[in-house]
């Protein structure tokens, strides 16, 4: 249980326009397999910026980022896309489901992109994830026919389809009411405890953070407590 999945070494980021503003400095931490980590901090403290750097989508930073032991620096855009596809699952504040596709197809997309399993297997796996999250009945509805809470659960299923090393969430409960927030939190909790899924969730919801296994607190671009 001590395998290191993600490690950040001295990550810094500045905006240069119009003047140099340092957003992140001296960010160094590690995430081990099975940890349920939450990142908290006030608005504008840089926690989302950090998440997008860790997710490999933002490549303009200094310092080293290792995912599964691989250095992310100097990787090409297409290689980073493969890393995201294989190792990282995303849950955003907004669900980002494609309305052109039905629910199960939305869940299957990253799996089909990975191209590790046949289409039938991917579909079978997608169905299992949907069952696990209790929305198997909605599998063949169009994405825009679902309620907000259901959509967020579909996007969690989508993030799980390739059995990622880590799931990253950017305020995944930010857009949901209390009841749905609780459901989503319970899902995360279950993933962490039952399936030993590693999670890294950015949130400003203190009660959400309080129930996670580890809290990283940020202020003014630095980690003040972890």
């Amino acid at each position, binding site marked *: 249980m001590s395998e290191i999945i993600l490690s950040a070494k001295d990550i810094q980021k500045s905006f240069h326009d119009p003047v140099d503003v340092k957003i992140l400095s001296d960010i160094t931490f590690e995430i081990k397999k099975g940890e349920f980590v939450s990142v908290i901090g006030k608005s504008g403290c840089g926690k989302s910026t950090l998440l997008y750097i860790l997710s490999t989508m933002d490549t303009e930073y200094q310092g080293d980022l290792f995912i599964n032991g691989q250095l992310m620096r100097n990787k090409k855009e297409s290689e980073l896309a493969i890393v995201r596809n294989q190792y990282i699952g995303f849950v955003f504040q907004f669900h980002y489901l494609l309305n052109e596709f039905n629910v199960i197809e939305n869940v299957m997309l990253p799996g*089909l*992109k990975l191209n590790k399993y046949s289409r039938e297997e991917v579909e079978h796996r997608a169905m299992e994830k949907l069952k696990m999250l209790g929305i198997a009945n909605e599998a063949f509805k169009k994405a825009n026919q679902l309620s907000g809470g259901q959509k967020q659960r579909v996007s969690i299923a989508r993030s799980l389809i390739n059995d990622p090393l880590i799931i990253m969430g950017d305020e995944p409960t930010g857009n949901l009411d209390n009841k749905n927030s609780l459901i989503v939190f319970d899902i995360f909790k279950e993933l962490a405890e039952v399936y030993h899924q590693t999670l890294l969730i950015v949130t400003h919801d203190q009660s959400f953070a309080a129930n996670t296994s580890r809290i990283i607190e940020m202020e003014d671009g630095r980690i003040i407590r972890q």
Partner: protein
Amino acid sequence: MSNLLIKIAKELLLARWRQTLVAAIGVTFSISMFVTLLSFMNGLNDLLDGLILNRTAHVRIYNEVKPSKKQVINLSNQYKDGYNFINSIKSSSSRQSIYNTVAIFETLNNDPRILGYAPKINAQVFFTYGTLAITGSINGIEVAAESKLFSFKDYVTAGKAIDLKNVPNSIILGKGLAEKLMANIGDVVQINTTDGNLMPLKVVGVFQSGLKDLDLVQSYTSIATAQKLMGKSNNYLTDIQVKLKDINQAPKIAKEYALLFDCDAEDIQTANSQFETGSTVRTIISYAVGVVLLIVAGFGIFNILNMLIYEKMDTIAILKATGFSGMDVKKIFIYIALSIGIFGGLFGIIFGLGFSVIIDNIPFNTPSLPTIKTFPINYKSTYYIIGIIFSLVTTYMAGFFPARKASKIDPVTIIRGK
């Protein structure tokens, strides 16, 4: 892998099927216009060229009336070393007939590049009718060869071409000439040669070439009659008209024969260079119009794809976040553009063929072109192939820039913007 991208492209396309349809109709319209225009223009080109080219020999072998190149003084040993000036050289009254015709025919028969040949006698004559004397020319021809190679039969509008061979001492007059002479079929016209021979010939037909000036002076008779008229022996010929399998070889073959037979030989390109120029200009114009139409359609596709990209920012962002690379996104949009191009182009050539068939059936009667009943259309497959290729190239170009833009969309800005 690319199956997945194609499926995504298809779903995005269908989600906006109205705009897609408009874009595809734009391509269809331009391609069909392009194909129709080219077919019609080239049909006209063929028609106009055919007026002259089909009836003109690819290589004409003849003896030009001109002063001898070898003047006596230059052949003399005595003056060989000097530069000899000779003033006022005149053409001698050397014979216009071609020497050694039997040997020439044998060579032509054995040359695989040659489709066929037709011998001819060309003479200037007067047609006398009452007190009237009209200048004109008479061509002694072999009707069968002339019909086969130069479609002579098609231009005989009254009477039968073959009667020239079957009826002794017969003549076919140009339409204008016949009207001037007020000669009908069965009438006899008097022919006066420049040497003073007089001969009555029976009119067995009237021909109409489509070129009025030609019809006013030309007439045809058989070779034997022409030889009789000229008072020459039966190996007298002034022209041999050669038709080649490949018209482009004419200049080369003409040079070769001029040397081989020691006579003059003119190729069709030299004789009718103005027609070539006209055809080329018309073809360029039709291509230019077609390409402009396609560029306009291309801008339409460009706009629609750009709009689609703005609408589908979220989709692009999440595809990238979940592991689709910029290249994948680019491919998706290129597929969208190309499928508009393929469908638009396919329907374009189908409609283009339809329009061509319609034009081909519109009656087009003109007194100067007796063989033409409808507007001419050239159904060459090249235009359809070019149409398809053009539609693919334009749509690819139109799709390329929006696709590149989509591939460069930064998912972070989109996702954080919410």
